[in-house]
C-alpha cells in the first residue's frame, strides 16, 4: 500500500516536471500576479479563495468566459455540463455532464461528486456555511436538512446516473445556471475530504478539478499554482502562476517581480501616465458591477423623509467635477445605478446636475437657501474621504446646507452604519456606499439598491416600528412563560386579527395583479400553519423547557407576521410598484430580467435614499507579453481571476 502511494507520488511529480518543461528542456512559463490575501482554500467560504475556486483551481457545471460587452465582462458557458434541460416551472433542472473531465488525481468527475458535495454543504456538519453566497438555499429541503430535521438523502439533488444530475428547487430559480458559476457550485473530491476532513484543502493534499493546482501557500505572502496534468479543456500556455498577496504592487511590477499590478490611487495613476514605459503598459476598464455614492443614514430622524430635500441634495452635486478634480480621472460620473452604454443604463433617466432646480426643490421642501434645516452628519471611516468632503462642500456652496463629517471606527461603520438594517444611534445624514453585484444572480442586478425596498422607503415611524419588531423577535427567544393555555391566549387573539390583515394583503395583491409577490408570501408552510403546528407540539410536549420553547417560537411567528403586515401597509406606493417589478424580474431568465430591471431600479433611484455619484475604473499595468488576463469586476473587485486563459508570448 505504502509503495503504491510512493509510486503514484513519483508519477505525479514526474508528470508535473514534464509539464513544467524542466525535463524536456522547454522554458517554463511563469506568471506572477497580485492577489487578495487568501486565508485558506475551502471554496465555500466567502473569502478570497472563492474567487480562485471559480475556474482556476476548481470548476463547476458552468463557468465564466471573457465577454467584454457583457455585465462584469463575462459570459456564462458550460464547463463540466454538456447540456441541460429545465422544467416549465423552473424548479427541476437536469444536467448532462461531460464524460472526459477528471480530478487532479485521475478520478473521473461524475454526477455523484456533485450530489455528495451538495449534500455535504447542506449537512449540519457545516453550521457556518454561508448559504447566502450561492444557490444551495433554494434546493428542495436544504434548510430542513441543514437543521437536522431531515436526512441529507432528502435534499433535492440526485445523480440519475454517473453523468446525469438532477437538481430540484423549493422555488423557481431562473438563474440557477448563473448561480452555479460561483464557488459553491463546484464539486469536492469525496474521498480526499472524508480521508482528512480538517486538512484536505491544503496544498499537497488537495484534489481539485480546475486547470491549476496549488502546490504552496503562505497566508500573508503568496501561493503557487502549477498546471493540473489531468485537466481536460481550454487552457493557456502558462506553466506556473505565483499569486502574491500585498506589498507595493507597482514597485514590484517595476522591479520585474509581477506581471501585472493594480493602480491604487491618483498619485500612482499620474506616475504611471507620466512614465513613457509604464504608460504604454497601462489598461483600464469600468467597474460596471458597482456603483459608488451615498445613502441616507439608517436612523429614525424624520427630517430625511422629505423627498424633495433628498432630491435637491442629489441634484446639487457636480459629478463631472468630482471625477475630474478629486478622483483624478479614475472614475466616471454616475447619475444612475447603471451607466449609459449598458442594457439597463440605457433605459434609465439620470439625476441631472441642476443647481437652480435643486434650490427650488429645497425651498419647496421648506428650507429655502438651507434655512431652517438642521446640521446634517455625513458618517465616514478611515483617515478621511475627499469624495465626501467634495460632496459636503457642494451642498454648502450650492444649497446652503450644513453638513458635518463624523469619523467612525471601520468595523462599527460597515457593520452598524452602512449595511445594518437600521442604526438607531445615527443622526439625520448620510454614509458612503459602494454597492456591488456578488455574481450574475438576477437579484444582484439591482446592486443592493433594493435596500431602499427593504429598509428605507417607509415613513420614519414605520422604520422605527420595524426596528422594534426586530428587537422583539430577539426578545422572544428569552421570554419566560408558555406553560399554560392562558399564555397562548394573547397569541391566538393576535393570530386571528393578523389573519384578517393577511387576507386583505392577498386580496390587494390579487387586485393589483402582482401574482409573483402573492406566490412568494403564500409559499407553504404559511405563517399560521407554522403557528398551529407549534401549538400542537406544545400540547404534546412533556417538559416545561419544551413547552416554553414552542411557545417562544410561536410568539416569534406572530411577531414576524405582524412586522410583515405593518411594513407592507406602511410602504410607499412607488416602493410597492418597484417591489412588484422586482418579483417579476427575478421570475424570468437572466436575459429577460435585464430588459425589465429598469422598472425596479428607476423608482428606487427616484426616491433618492441611495444616490449614485461615480463609477470607479479599474486601472492596471500589465506585461505586454501577457494575454488573457481577466478582470474580476464583482464584489471584492477589482482584481484578476479565471487564470486558465493566460498566455505568455515568447
Amino acid at each position, binding site marked *: 500500500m505504502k509503495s503504491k502511494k510512493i509510486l503514484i507520488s513519483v508519477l505525479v511529480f514526474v508528470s508535473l516536471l514534464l509539464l513544467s518543461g524542466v525535463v524536456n528542456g522547454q522554458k517554463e512559463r511563469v506568471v506572477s500576479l497580485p492577489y487578495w490575501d487568501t486565508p485558506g482554500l475551502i471554496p465555500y467560504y466567502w473569502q478570497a479563495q472563492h474567487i480562485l475556486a471559480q475556474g482556476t483551481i476548481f470548476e463547476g457545471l458552468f463557468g465564466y468566459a471573457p465577454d467584454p460587452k457583457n455585465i462584469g465582462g463575462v459570459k456564462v458557458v458550460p464547463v463540466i455540463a454538456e447540456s441541460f434541460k429545465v422544467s416549465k416551472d423552473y424548479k427541476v433542472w437536469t444536467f448532462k455532464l461531460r464524460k472526459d473531465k477528471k480530478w487532479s488525481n485521475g478520478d473521473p468527475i461524475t454526477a455523484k461528486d456533485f450530489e455528495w458535495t451538495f449534500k455535504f454543504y447542506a449537512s*449540519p456538519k457545516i*453550521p457556518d456555511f454561508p*448559504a447566502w453566497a450561492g444557490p444551495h438555499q433554494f434546493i428542495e429541503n436544504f434548510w430542513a436538512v441543514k437543521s437536522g430535521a431531515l436526512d441529507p438523502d432528502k435534499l433535492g439533488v440526485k445523480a440519475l446516473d454517473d453523468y446525469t444530475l438532477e437538481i430540484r428547487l423549493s422555488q423557481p430559480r431562473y438563474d440557477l445556471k448563473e448561480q452555479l458559476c460561483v464557488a459553491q457550485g463546484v464539486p469536492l473530491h469525496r474521498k480526499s475530504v472524508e480521508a482528512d476532513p480538517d486538512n484536505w484543502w491544503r496544498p499537497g493534499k488537495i484534489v481539485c478539478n480546475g486547470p491549476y493546482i496549488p502546490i504552496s501557500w503562505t497566508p500573508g505572502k503568496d501561493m503557487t499554482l502549477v498546471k493540473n496534468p489531468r485537466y481536460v479543456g481550454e487552457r493557456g500556455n502558462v506553466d506556473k502562476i505565483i499569486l*502574491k498577496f500585498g506589498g507595493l504592487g507597482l514597485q514590484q511590477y517595476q522591479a520585474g517581480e509581477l506581471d501585472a499590478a493594480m493602480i491604487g490611487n491618483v498619485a500612482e495613476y499620474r506616475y504611471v501616465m507620466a512614465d513613457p514605459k509604464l504608460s504604454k503598459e497601462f489598461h483600464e476598464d469600468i467597474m460596471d458591477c458597482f456603483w459608488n455614492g451615498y445613502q441616507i443614514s439608517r436612523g429614525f430622524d424624520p427630517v430625511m423623509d422629505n423627498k424633495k430635500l433628498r432630491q435637491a441634495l442629489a441634484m446639487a452635486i457636480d459629478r463631472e467635477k468630482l471625477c475630474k478634480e478629486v478622483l483624478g480621472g479614475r472614475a466616471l460620473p454616475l447619475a444612475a445605478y447603471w451607466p449609459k452604454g449598458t442594457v439597463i443604463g440605457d433605459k434609465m433617466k439620470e439625476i441631472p446636475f441642476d443647481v437652480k432646480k435643486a434650490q427650488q426643490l429645497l425651498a419647496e421642501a421648506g428650507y429655502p437657501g438651507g434655512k431652517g434645516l438642521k446640521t446634517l452628519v455625513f458618517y465616514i471611516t478611515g483617515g478621511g474621504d475627499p469624495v465626501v468632503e467634495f460632496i459636503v462642500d457642494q451642498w454648502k456652496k450650492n444649497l446652503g446646507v450644513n453638513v458635518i463629517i463624523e469619523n467612525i471606527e471601520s468595523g462599527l461603520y460597515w*457593520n*452598524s452604519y452602512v449595511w445594518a438594517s437600521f442604526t438607531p444611534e445615527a443622526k439625520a445624514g448620510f454614509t458612503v456606499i459602494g454597492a456591488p453585484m456578488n455574481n450574475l444572480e438576477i437579484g444582484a442586478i439591482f446592486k443592493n439598491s433594493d435596500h431602499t425596498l427593504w429598509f428605507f422607503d417607509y415613513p420614519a415611524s414605520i422604520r422605527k416600528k420595524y426596528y422594534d419588531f426586530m428587537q422583539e423577535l430577539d426578545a422572544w427567544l428569552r421570554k419566560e412563560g408558555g406553560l399554560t393555555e392562558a399564555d397562548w391566549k394573547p397569541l391566538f387573539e393576535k393570530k386571528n386579527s393578523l389573519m384578517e390583515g393577511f387576507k386583505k394583503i392577498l386580496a390587494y395583491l390579487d387586485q393589483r395583479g402582482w401574482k409573483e409577490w402573492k406566490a412568494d408570501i403564500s409559499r407553504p408552510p404559511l405563517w399560521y400553519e407554522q403557528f398551529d403546528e407549534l401549538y400542537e407540539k406544545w400540547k404534546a410536549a412533556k417538559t416545561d423547557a419544551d413547552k416554553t420553547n414552542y411557545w417562544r417560537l410561536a410568539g416569534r411567528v406572530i411577531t414576524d407576521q405582524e412586522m410583515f403586515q405593518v411594513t407592507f401597509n406602511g410602504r410607499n406606493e412607488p416602493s410597492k410598484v418597484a417591489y412588484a417589478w422586482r418579483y417579476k424580474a427575478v421570475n424570468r431568465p437572466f436575459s429577460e430580467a435585464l430588459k425589465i430591471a429598469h422598472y425596479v431600479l428607476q423608482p428606487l433611484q427616484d426616491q433618492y435614499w441611495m444616490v449614485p455619484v461615480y463609477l470607479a475604473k479599474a486601472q492596471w499595468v500589465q506585461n505586454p507579453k501577457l494575454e488573457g488576463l481577466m478582470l474580476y469586476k464583482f464584489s471584492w473587485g477589482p482584481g484578476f481571476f479565471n487564470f486558465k486563459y493566460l498566455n505568455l508570448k515568447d
Partner: protein
Amino acid sequence: MGLIKYIIRRLFTIFLSIVIVIIITYILMWFAPGEFFNIAQFQASAGKVSTLTPEQLQVLIKGFEEKYGLNVPLWKQVWNYLKDAFRFKFGPSFSNPNEPIEVQIARRFPVTFTLAILSMTLAVLLGIPLGIIAALKRNTWVDYVTMFFSMIGSIIPAYLIGVIMVLILSVWLRWLPTSGWESPKQMIMPVIAVGLGPLAVIARFMRSSLLDILNQDYIRTAYAKGGTDRAIIMRHALRNSLIPIVTIIGPQLAFLFTGTVFIENLFRVPGLGQLFVNAASQRDYPLLVTSTFILSLSVMLMNLLVDIVYAFLDPRIKYE
C-alpha cells in the same frame, strides 16, 4: 534558589494578570458597539433566514453558537476560553474558519519572532555603540550627527522608511527584491525598517544614560585613582548604563511581536500583525481575545526576562 523562587512567583503573577486581562477584554467587548456577540455572524452565514421555519432557525443558530462557544453564559465563555488558552488552544475564528487560531498563530509566530529578534539585534548592535560614541564625543559634530539621525529614525514611520528603501534599493538600483520572506536578501529591508525605530531610541537612551553615569561620584573617584578612559568606561560606566537600556528593550521587543503590521503588509512578511489587526475591524472576537492574550503574555514574559537580566548587570539587585 532565590532566583527560581522569584521566577515561580512571577509566573504565578503573570497567570493571574492574564486572567484579569482576559476578563476585562471580554467585558469591554460586551459593552463595545458593533455586535461582537450577536448572532449577526450566523445570519450572515445563513442567508435568507426568512425562508426557514422558526425551529429550523433555532437549530441552526444553536449549531453556529456551539461551533464558536457562544451557547453558554458569558462567564462560562470566559472560563472555557481561559481553560483552553493556557493549553494554547484557541478554537476557530469568525473571519477565518479554515483552520483553528492556534494553527494560524503557530505558522505566523516564528516569522514575526524572527523579524522582531533580527530587528532588535540590529537596533542593539548599532544603537548601543552609536549612543556610546555620541556620549563620549558629546557636543562635537559626531554627537550632533548621531543624534540627528537617531531623531530622524525615531520620528519617521517604519512604513515610510520601507517605501523609500523599496524605491531606492529595489526599483532604481535593483539590488534587493521588493518583498518576500524566504532568502536573507528579502529580509534585509523589513529588518532595517522595523529596527530603525528601536535603534534610534536605544542610541538616545544609551547616550543619556552613559552621560549620567559619567557624572557620578564613583566615576570621578576612578579617574582620581588614575584609571584610563577605556578602563573606566568598560569596567564601571558601561555596565551600569546598560540597565535602563535593558528596561526599554524588553517591552519594545514584546510590541514588535504584534506591532509590525504595516511592514508585514508592505514586504509581504507572513507574520502575526496583519492577523491581529484584522480581528478588531472584522469583529472577530475569538481572534481579538487571543491577540490580547498573546500580547499580554509576551509583554509580561519580556518584563520577567528583563528583571532577570538586571541581576547579571547589577549584582546589588537581589531577588526576594
